């Protein structure tokens, strides 16, 4: 497995019931190529939170996953409103999600903190009105 495998997913907005399909696909592909269950779990949780965020806050976007022998890199790019205050967004419990999202079981203010918790590196680039790109790395 010397080569890098790259997977790309378009995340569609509006359809909350389908949110998570990309993460589900990545999880089964990682299993196929023999990545350890512990690493798969981290990638699955972090990417799923990111995918849900894209649907809730950013009207969808694009996720690229690069699998190399040493690490799994996830790049989540959206053209959403951007994050006005990253420090606050990183605080457990802080959320700007509307009530209807909360009634669906999300918007607890744990998305970004969870993404950080389950990855070895996380970088957020955001511009108000332009979009957000989050890069996360799980080392193998």
């Amino acid at each position, binding site marked *: 497995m010397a080569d890098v495998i790259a997977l790309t997913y378009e995340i569609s907005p509006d359809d909350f019931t389908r949110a998570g399909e990309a993460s589900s696909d990545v999880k089964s592909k990682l299993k196929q190529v023999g990545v350890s269950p512990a690493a798969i779990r981290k990638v*699955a949780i972090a990417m799923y939170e990111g995918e849900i965020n894209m649907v809730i806050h950013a009207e969808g976007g694009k996720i690229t996953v690069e699998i190399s022998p040493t690490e799994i890199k996830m790049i989540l790019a959206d053209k959403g409103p951007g994050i006005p205050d990253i420090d606050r967004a990183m605080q457990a419990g802080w959320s700007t999600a509307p009530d209807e999202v909360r009634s669906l079981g999300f918007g607890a203010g744990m998305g970004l903190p969870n993404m950080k918790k389950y990855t070895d590196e996380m970088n957020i680039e955001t511009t108000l009105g332009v979009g957000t790109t989050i890069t996360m790395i799980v080392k193998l």
Partner: protein
Amino acid sequence: MTVKDVMNVLGARVLVGEEHLDREVRSACGSDMMSDVLAFSKDHSVLLTGLCNPQVIRTAEMLDIVCIIFVRGKKPDETILEMAKERELVVLETGHRMFSSCGMLYAAGLHGGAI
């Protein structure tokens, strides 16, 4: 304990996954907020929830949850049950409320795992 033990403690009914009742259960997590479940759930967990939508199944999938228990008599629809089948999850249903269900399992020796 096993999924079957959990079922007996709660007097729960199996909706999906009757063939997997001998699976080992080591801890449990009870919440209607899936983000909290994603933050705190441990290995070999059961998930108790009153939330009834496809994201419950996906959350369970991401965490390799052993068994989902719908509390307060919540009835998942066919789409949800079909998703659970595809992922080889066990789905149970009990009329007990969340607090009571958690208490019964805790008293029977199932804990939430270290913080």
